């Protein structure tokens, strides 16, 4: 029985990478469709009319949008190589940290890129505060998922690649090895996992992209 799985993504979207990692970890075969967000395909608009964004997962012609919703769908559909714990309290804890990443970590790092002056300082401070909490959570663990990658690692995985890119673009330190030894070790361990390593977008292209985004922002102010 052929299962048709398609992933709509861009070359650089950190959210789409989550979906790629989850499918690759579970050994699911899929077709990749690259979108140009300045010229969205009719299919993308049909499959994600509400947000019109990537990633979108198409499974047997049915679309699912929002990367974290897609991760839960992948987990519900392909039950081998689980990404969430079995115990309900541990599952709730995993979901808590995934939400923390979305609500606190990502916006602070994003605003450090997009803002200037005092606003940028505040965003940077907020990012450092959020890293302190991640550092605490890693105590006694190699990965957020324990011995193996779990959904929290996948949801936070963008840190392992984008942080060093943004540190270069902004000339601003985010994750100092001495201040955040566990988080630094996690980033190295995560980035080295074959399934993860093979799918990082090219670093030089990412640096160019984020420099351009920052410059465009500064120009509009």
């Amino acid at each position, binding site marked *: 029985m052929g299962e048709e799985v398609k992933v709509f993504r861009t070359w650089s979207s950190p959210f789409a990478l989550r979906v790629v990692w989850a499918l690759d970890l579970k050994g699911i075969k899929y077709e990749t469709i690259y979108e140009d967000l300045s010229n969205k395909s009719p299919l993308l608009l049909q499959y994600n009319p509400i947000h019109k964004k990537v990633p979108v997962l198409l499974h047997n012609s049915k679309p*699912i949008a929002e990367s974290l919703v897609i991760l839960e*769908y992948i987990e519900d559909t392909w039950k081998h190589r689980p990404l969430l714990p079995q115990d309900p309290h541990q599952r709730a804890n995993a979901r808590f940290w995934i939400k923390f990443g979305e609500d606190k970590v990502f916006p602070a790092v994003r605003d450090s890129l997009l803002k200037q002056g005092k606003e940028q300082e505040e965003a940077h401070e907020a990012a450092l505060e959020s890293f302190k909490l991640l550092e605490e959570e890693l105590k006694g663990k190699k990965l957020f998922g324990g011995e193996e990658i779990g959904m929290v690692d996948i949801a936070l995985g963008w840190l392992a690649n984008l942080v060093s890119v943004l540190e270069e673009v902004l000339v601003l330190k985010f994750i100092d090895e001495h201040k955040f030894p566990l988080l630094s070790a996690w980033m190295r361990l995560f980035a080295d996992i074959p399934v993860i390593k093979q799918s990082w977008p090219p670093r030089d292209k990412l640096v160019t992209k984020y420099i351009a985004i920052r410059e465009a922002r500064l120009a509009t102010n």
Partner: protein
Amino acid sequence: MADEVVLLDLWSSMFGMRVRVALAEKGVEYEYKEQDLRNKGPLLLEMNPIHKKIPVLIHNGKPICESLIIVQYIDEVWHHKAPLLPSDPYQRAQARFWADYVDKKVYPPGRKIWATKGDEQEEAKKEFIEILKVLEGELGEKPYFGGESFGFVDISFVTFSCWFHVYETFGNFSIEKECPKLMAWVKRCQERESVSKSLPDEKKLLEFVYYLMKIFGIE
């Protein structure tokens, strides 16, 4: 051995109400502990040290935070009765998508309708009505967002319904006029004891907002 279930909550919070509705749907007995958010107690600070917010569910001494995460937890633990999420993975994904949509979109403009004035308030009102219309579109002809059964998306959104009176009063508009099918859904949900017993009286909420404005010095 009996389960010990405690809910740390605030009577007016639409997020806390979600947990009350879910527990009621499952017939779970629990102890409700009203929190004073301007003077946070040691239990709240111990059980939710990161966000220091309500709701927090404490089950046999272990805390669970974030309302929709709590509702999923309740569904997984008390799974023998009243399933809140569908069993089909695609239907579950749709439910998660729409609950996420409600969670991200409804609260901010709703709050601005009563907490701001002039252009900012007008913008918020327009945005709010648009969002409600999208939700009404998703509901379609179904009795509930979950289809035939009351479920996760219904729980995530119905708790805003007691706040509609506040939004309508301050925004000077009628949600019934803008979204009649949505209001029919609200009335249908309110016929469920889990909802009617968990949501406060809308007039009390309006009085509460007037009180908040006084203490925060909003005109």
